[in-house]
């Protein structure tokens, strides 16, 4: 167990360090997220749909698209000079490698969300202050599951042709449960519905997280030829 954490820490620290030196991926994802928020706002007919009505959907479309383009690079950076082989030779602990990649991706996606969320509040003028803790729980629960599946699939698609195109095709169906669940929960929270109406959604997200974090850990080794 300690070995797993040690490897995970090394991998995550490496990925974060690489990203901090250039900040290209993170910056472009943040800009991308802001653009999506703005486009979704201006693309609606203001006389027919109020901003508050589409706010939950806009938030989660933004979060999932920004997450998607960020996940593409998780293993793309290991393709150069066949760095993945080096990692596999250095760390025989596959579970640790997966958890490290997952942690790094969660940090990146979480950072994008932290930047995009205040802008979302500003653009869509949503009353969030009292609901902040609940919204944070929804975001964490929905993000873990989809980033975990995304990490696993990212490791596959970088080894195929059309890598950048493959990831959305494969990952978006897996995003349906967390995103739909998160949108429903977000709109109920923003409407100040009682906690009892939220429990079903929370359970769904938690179950999704449990299954789709454990499964990728178990089958991650199948994505490499050892």
């Amino acid at each position, binding site marked *: 167990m300690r070995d797993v954490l040690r490897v995970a820490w090394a991998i995550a620290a490496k990925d974060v360090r690489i990203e901090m030196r250039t900040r290209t991926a993170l910056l472009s994802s943040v800009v991308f997220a802001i653009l999506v928020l703005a486009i979704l706002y201006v693309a609606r007919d203001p006389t027919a749909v109020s901003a508050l009505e589409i706010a939950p959907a806009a938030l989660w479309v933004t979060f999932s698209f920004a997450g998607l383009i960020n996940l593409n690079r998780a293993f793309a950076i290991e393709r150069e000079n066949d760095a993945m082989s080096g990692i596999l030779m250095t760390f025989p602990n596959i579970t640790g490698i997966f958890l490290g990649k997952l942690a790094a991706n969660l940090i990146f996606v979480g950072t994008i969300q932290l930047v995009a969320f205040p802008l979302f509040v500003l653009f869509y003028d949503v009353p969030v202050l009292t609901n902040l803790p609940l919204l944070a729980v929804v975001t964490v629960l929905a993000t873990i599951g989809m980033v975990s*599946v995304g990490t*696993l*699939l990212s490791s*596959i*698609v970088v*080894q*195929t*042709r*059309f890598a950048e195109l*493959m990831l959305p*095709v*494969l990952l*978006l*169906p*897996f995003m*349906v*449960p967390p995103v*739909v*669940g998160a949108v*429903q929960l977000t709109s109920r929270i923003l409407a100040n519905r009682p906690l009892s109406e939220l429990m*079903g*959604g929370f359970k*769904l997200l938690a*179950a*999704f997280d449990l*299954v*789709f974090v454990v*499964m*990728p850990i178990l*089958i991650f080794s*199948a*994505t490499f*030829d050892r």
Partner: protein
Amino acid sequence: MTDRTNALRLLSRGQILTVIGLIGFGFLIVRAMAFTPLEVRQGAAQKIMYVHVPSAWAAGVAIMLTGLFSAAYLWLRDERADRAAAASAEVGILFGTVMLGTGPFWAKPVWGAWWVWDARLTSTLFLYLLFVGYLILRDSTEDRGMRARFSAVVGLMGLVLVPFVHLTVYMFRTQHPEPVVLKPEGVTMPGSMLATLLVGVVVFTVLYFGFVMQRYGLTVLDDLRQEEMYDAA
């Protein structure tokens, strides 16, 4: 040589099964059109059920077997499981297309719209697209071992995703008819209609296995040819 003989034998057996299935399909159409009563409220449009429901059944079987064969591949690393999963997925897409193609023609006269964002339609569409993605993934991977491992991962994950997508979209309103055959209270459908539907299910199951056997045989032959080309080079 024995691999080739086996593959050819499987291929011809699949062809025989498919011919039997096609004859059964003709029988199904005749029986559905001429010897099964009209549904009182839905009229002739309801006849589509005898193709729509069996193809949904075959597509469901296909998805499930693809997932199970994928799990088997990850466990045993046996090439046969990979070929079976791929064949099943491809045939599943075919039946899925029939299901999604026939549904709107039943929906338009009965619901008044070609497509509705009902729970079952929505989840079926997403899962259908995932398995199209599965086939694209296979196409975009050259190396056989790699292709087998990657598609097994996606196939197994897809199987696990099914209940989640289903649960999620049930948070929406549902318009699709509730089951009238497989439900706890028992069957609520006239005997003659049920008989025709069951004929359809049997016919489509036979067709499924006929197609999968042919596809499997063809894949083996294709792999053998590529090995020969590789050896010759």
